[in-house]
């Protein structure tokens, strides 16, 4: 729909966008490092962020444009199932509370920049590390694209290049400009840029949500009315599928899907390179733990944002072309005065920039450390690594742009869920690896390959509701044996674990070389400022569980 450009809303949007741009470039001077041409600086912000900054950085990283567009869009279109984002973002914190401190410690000791660095050193397998790195890059690309979709939706609603007219270039020009600016300041400032911009983003989002959940229910007749209207709407029959749109609570047939979506997404979240990047940029071991207790503040906001979908129903929003993604921006457009709609749109737009920047950095770090340095230039200097990473971050962003201009955007959430299927398959190598060296590197590789293949094939076979024969129609499929519909990622993960365990037993029994472990037990509980006990010869018997201590000099980054 192209109802013309709202000058006031657009003015506010552009002004806020410009402020953020300036901040992005100035960030290079913030907590200035002696030398920005080092991955620890450009890619991890100097590994110096404390609890406060990390809260904003992780908040900006985890709760993305996906939050503001796709979750309420799903609630708007299908009801209760879209609310899975809430249990997902509650159970993720106990999970990360347990394993991330160990990953932080071992990474701190050995100077790992990526999760694949850890896998390489722990399991002594270049192939397994490459699998982890490539999976990370593959899963991150659609996730960055999703952020672009978020910006595009907002631009459309503001009347910039919306509709079909004007050709593909004119349609996407504002998006290309926005992303070009983002690419430029990420290139020059690295992780410091999104860390600083996250403050603005979160301030805007908390403001918009606070206003929205007080003002809009007041305007449309209260919460009870909102849920009643939603209930009536969801019970109506969807002409496309011949079934009701959804329900206000999960129907018995959907329980497995709901629970498995929450669990699978929660397990997958911190396998994403951008989440691990933010974690590794922290100053000490307990910053992550403190944040696990403080980040649920965002989950509460996410729950309220999800309910914006119902508010849109109650307010009678009819998004152009039935595109549910437009529901919330349209709601803001209808309910808010122009200037505040501009603020709300800026919140979404900037909310896409922060994670997009971190994701590009994380993907670039993976490429640099685990492809370029590992296979192309083993002797790369830190300055060369930083240079390659900066260029790779540009390539990744360009790739995401092509991805989004070339693909069907109808359900952005499914793109992210497809990435989720893949990324969860790196869980055994990374998380099991943090606790035990029992697992065999080739078994981990085989489990990963089997699960990737299974997940992709099954996801491909899911038709879009009401369109038999179509593909990638949703995140759930019937689980063999169980007979219930569940999140494909979790089913693939179960297959992964079975393969890993069985083959590990086989390989161990047949004495297939397991490689040497570059880490010791003590590495997993180390904290900043600890004396490295291995540096005091004779004090500790470091050969315990680490047959090849001499291998230490080859550990990445040190």
């Amino acid at each position, binding site marked *: 729909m192209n109802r013309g450009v709202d000058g006031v809303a657009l003015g506010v949007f552009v002004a806020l966008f410009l402020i953020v741009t300036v901040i992005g470039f100035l960030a290079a001077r913030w907590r200035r490092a002696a030398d920005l041409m080092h991955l620890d600086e450009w890619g991890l912000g100097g590994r110096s962020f404390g609890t406060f900054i990390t809260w904003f950085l992780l908040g900006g990283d985890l709760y993305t444009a996906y939050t503001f567009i796709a979750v309420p869009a799903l609630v708007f279109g299908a009801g209760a199932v879209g609310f899975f984002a*809430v249990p997902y973002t509650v159970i993720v914190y106990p999970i990360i*509370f347990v394993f991330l401190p160990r990953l932080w410690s071992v990474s701190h000791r050995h100077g790992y920049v990526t999760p694949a660095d850890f896998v390489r050193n722990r399991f002594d397998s270049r192939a397994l590390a490459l699998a982890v790195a490539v999976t990370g890059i593959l899963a991150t690309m659609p996730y960055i694209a999703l952020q672009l979709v978020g910006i595009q939706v907002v631009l459309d609603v503001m009347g910039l290049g919306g509709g079909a007219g004007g050709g593909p270039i004119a349609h996407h020009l504002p998006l290309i400009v926005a992303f070009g600016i983002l690419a430029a300041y990420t290139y020059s400032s690295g992780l410091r840029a999104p860390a600083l911009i996250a403050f603005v983003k979160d301030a805007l989002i908390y403001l918009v949500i606070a206003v929205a959940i007080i003002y809009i229910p007041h305007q449309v007749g209260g919460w009870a009315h909102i849920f009643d209207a939603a209930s009536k709407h969801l019970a109506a029959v969807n002409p496309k599928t011949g079934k009701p749109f959804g329900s206000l609570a999960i129907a018995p047939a959907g329980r497995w899907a709901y629970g498995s979506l929450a669990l699978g997404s929660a397990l997958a979240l911190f396998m994403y390179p951008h989440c691990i990047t933010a974690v590794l940029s922290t100053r000490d071991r307990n910053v992550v733990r403190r944040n696990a207790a403080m980040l*649920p503040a965002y989950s509460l906001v996410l729950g309220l944002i999800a309910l914006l979908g119902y508010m849109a129903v109650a307010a009678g929003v009819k998004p152009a072309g039935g595109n549910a993604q437009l529901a919330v921006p349209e709601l803001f457009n209808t309910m808010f005065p122009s200037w505040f709609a501009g603020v709300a749109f800026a919140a979404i737009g900037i909310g896409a920039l922060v994670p997009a920047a971190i994701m590009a950095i994380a993907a670039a770090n993976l490429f640099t450390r685990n492809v370029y340095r590992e296979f192309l230039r083993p002797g790369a200097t830190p300055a060369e690594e930083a240079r390659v990473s900066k260029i790779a971050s540009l390539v990744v962003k360009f790739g995401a742009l092509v991805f989004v201009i070339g693909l069907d955007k109808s359900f952005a959430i499914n793109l992210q869920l497809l990435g989720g299927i893949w990324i969860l398959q790196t869980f055994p190598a990374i998380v099991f690896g943090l606790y035990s060296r029992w697992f065999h590197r080739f078994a981990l590789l085989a489990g990963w390959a089997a699960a990737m293949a299974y997940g992709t094939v099954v996801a491909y076979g899911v038709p879009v509701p009401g369109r038999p024969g179509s593909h990638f129609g949703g995140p759930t499929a019937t689980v063999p044996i169980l007979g219930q519909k569940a999140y494909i990622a979790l089913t693939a993960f179960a297959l992964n674990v079975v393969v890993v365990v069985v083959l590990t037993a086989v390989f161990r029994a047949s004495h297939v070389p397991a490689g040497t472990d570059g880490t010791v037990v003590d590495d997993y509980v180390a904290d900043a400022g600890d004396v490295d006990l291995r540096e005091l010869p004779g004090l500790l018997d470091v050969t315990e569980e680490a047959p090849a201590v001499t291998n230490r000099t080859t550990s990445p980054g040190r």
Partner: protein
Amino acid sequence: MGGSGKGRKPWAARGVIGLLLLAPVVALLWVPSYTRVRPRLFGFPFFYWYQLAWVIVGAACLAGAYVLTIRLERQQRRAR
């Protein structure tokens, strides 16, 4: 408080930490326990306010687990 601590058993603390971390996961994965509309609260169907309440309860559980974990790790460091 010496290395052993007065009556502080690490396994007991670990058990409590484990329970605090497990509670929100189990509660929210047990979908049939909350997928209904009534009773409503401030107009919110049960399904919604119950899960939102778990966001707050879950954060409190994690805060508790954090305090206990820090204490436990400090003891262990001292004991080493």
